[in-house]
């Protein structure tokens, strides 16, 4: 029982990271029908920049805030420079290449300036694990599901109750019609990418004290987050959150009860099978287009 709880807690923690990354993809897709394919890089910047700012003497929270602000600016810049110019035409796919290129450039620049090694981000919340019915977890790891719940609730609120949210939904529904009623679709898309950047950077900042912040920390997480978004149905906010958490828990149970070495192979196979039976994603809506 204790072991099961241990896997569950670990799965909730890592699953929350996957869910936040997938949520970022969903937010971008809503607004632009395009994403930053190197979104894992923004996750990495959240952690790495927090370490860099802490080296500069900023206290932990201030370092995290500064890292998030800078990453949000970079996320917006990526939309402006690497997505918008390449997403003008219907069915344009240039943004795929350009966002991957932007990610490679950012990762290389980080490696060149910050180094190839991971560095710890000291936090009082990883000094002692807490015990829950015999299972151990760091308080820092409990922040991840808490942050996920907070972000999801806030996003739902924004989408449903604010002018910005309505504008985001309008652009997602029909970009041209939204423009015709006076919504600046480009600006709304820029804001959506910035929101996604905030979510990714927050996840990176929160997880950095548990792992080490390194220039490559976003590669696998970004890939798995994208996978979660696709399998859940990238237009379903609640779906990506749920599938992200479940994917993390599934991984830990596979490690615990099936095979550590085969974890990724089995988990990815399960995801592919899910996609086979639900081509729109587990929570995706069937897209009907009149032609």
């Amino acid at each position, binding site marked *: 029982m204790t*072991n099961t709880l*241990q*896997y569950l807690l*670990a799965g909730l*923690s*890592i699953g929350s990271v996957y869910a936040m990354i997938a949520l970022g993809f969903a937010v971008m897709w809503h607004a632009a029908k395009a994403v930053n394919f190197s979104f894992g890089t923004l996750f990495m910047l959240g952690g790495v920049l927090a370490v860099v700012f802490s080296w500069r003497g900023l206290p932990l929270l201030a370092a995290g805030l500064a890292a998030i602000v800078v990453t949000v600016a970079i996320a917006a810049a990526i939309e402006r420079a690497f997505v918008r110019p390449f997403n003008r035409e219907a069915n344009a796919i240039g943004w795929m290449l350009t966002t991957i290129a932007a990610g490679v450039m950012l990762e290389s620049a980080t*490696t060149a300036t910050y*180094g*190839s*090694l*991971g*560095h*710890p981000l000291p936090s009082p919340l*990883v000094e002692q*694990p807490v015990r829950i019915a015999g299972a*151990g*977890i*760091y308080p820092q790891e409990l922040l991840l599901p808490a942050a996920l719940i907070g972000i999801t609730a806030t996003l739902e609120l924004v989408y449903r109750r604010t002018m910005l949210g309505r504008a985001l939904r309008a652009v997602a529904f029909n970009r041209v019609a939204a423009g015709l009623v006076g919504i600046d679709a480009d600006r709304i898309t820029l804001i959506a990418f910035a929101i996604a950047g905030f979510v990714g950077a927050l996840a990176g900042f929160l*997880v950095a004290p*548990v*792992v*080490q912040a*390194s220039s*490559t920390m976003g590669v*696998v997480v970004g890939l798995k987050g994208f996978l979660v978004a696709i399998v859940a149905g990238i237009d379903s906010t609640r779906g990506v959150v749920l599938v992200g958490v479940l994917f993390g828990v599934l991984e*830990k149970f596979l*490690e*615990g009860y099936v095979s*550590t*070495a085969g*974890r*990724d192979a089995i988990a990815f196979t399960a995801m592919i099978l899910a996609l086979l039976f639900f081509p729109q994603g587990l929570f995706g809506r069937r897209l009907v287009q009149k032609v």
Partner: protein
Amino acid sequence: MRTVSDGRRRRLLSAALACAALAGFGLAGEAHAQRAEPCIGASWELTGAFAHQAQQIRYGATAAIEEINEKGGVLGQRLRLVAYDDQGEPARAVDNARRIGERDNCIAMLGGFRTPNAIALREPLHEMELPWVGTISAGTAVIEFPTNKWMFRVSMKDRWVAGFLLDRAREASKSGKVGMVYEATAWGQGGLADAERAAAERGVTLAAKETYNMGDADMSAQLIRLRDAGVDAIVLYGNDREVANLLRSMDRLGYRPAIFAAWGIGARLAELAGPLAEGVRVAGTFSWLGELPDRAKGVLARMQALFPEIRTPADLLHPSGTANAYDAVHIIAEAIRIAGRFDRGAVREAMYKVNMTGLVADYRPAFEPRPDRHDAVTPQAYRLFAYHNGQLLPVEQTPHRLAARAN
């Protein structure tokens, strides 16, 4: 008839002259091929995840070359280090080795950190007849293969390391159950094979064997299985980042077995894992911390002068690798002196005649012409180090000599 005969004779003479000329060119070419340049090539991961390890090797190798050149070089020639970046990829390492052997025509080549890269070089080095001296990559298969003529090593060997670690783990274990944890790489899997063989030689079995993927942040599942198997001492093959995560997972579970690690972990583990690293023991060949012999003090001072980023000995993140590289360059230089010329074949033969004292060991002789003695550092020179108060120290200078890890 006479005229025809003269013509035929002239043609025969011309053909003979042409053949002689061609043979001369051939001989000249052969002589040229034997005459190598006074450079030592290297294919290292100068960029990439383990770039810091390559830098550790460079420190030692550069210091040795400077020292040799200050004394007039070798056979009147100044040695040069020619290092290329392989980004940790075996295919690039092969390309670099070909540049070193064919274009740069270096007399010898130094090895780097990664075992798979070294294994990838076995065939090209044999084809080019280029002596190679490993400095870190400890995989058994790097040296021990039937056709090995050209690959030597001044480093540890996993087959010997596994037995060394297993003996210490058995000493520390109260339950008598020793487990193995290894990363899912060629090096880790090779370590498992070596540890199983060492266990079989000692008539024991490993109580549990667990692996993890590179980049894994949580190893709770593996540790739970080890704990449930009653394991209280672990032989570990891993690198700094994942081992720091392993220690965090142990902390979550409240499970604190004694750890005896191969040298994938270095001085950085203390930075990454903080107090959790206390008491982890690591096999190695050399430490720059604590009281040093005069020669080592001089080498350290030279490296600090050459590389200002080495502020203290603790900045040498792979202390054994640095010392190995220093010794490896001196062994190559000594072999050239014994050979008396910059001829790769002669230098290879001279490797077996090198007798010298290095930082790491007394090399008497450095190598012997049999498969398991192309390794210069024998188990008698292996040492155990332990993390104590954030530093990786010789275990004798810590409270962790025999005791299991402090709780």
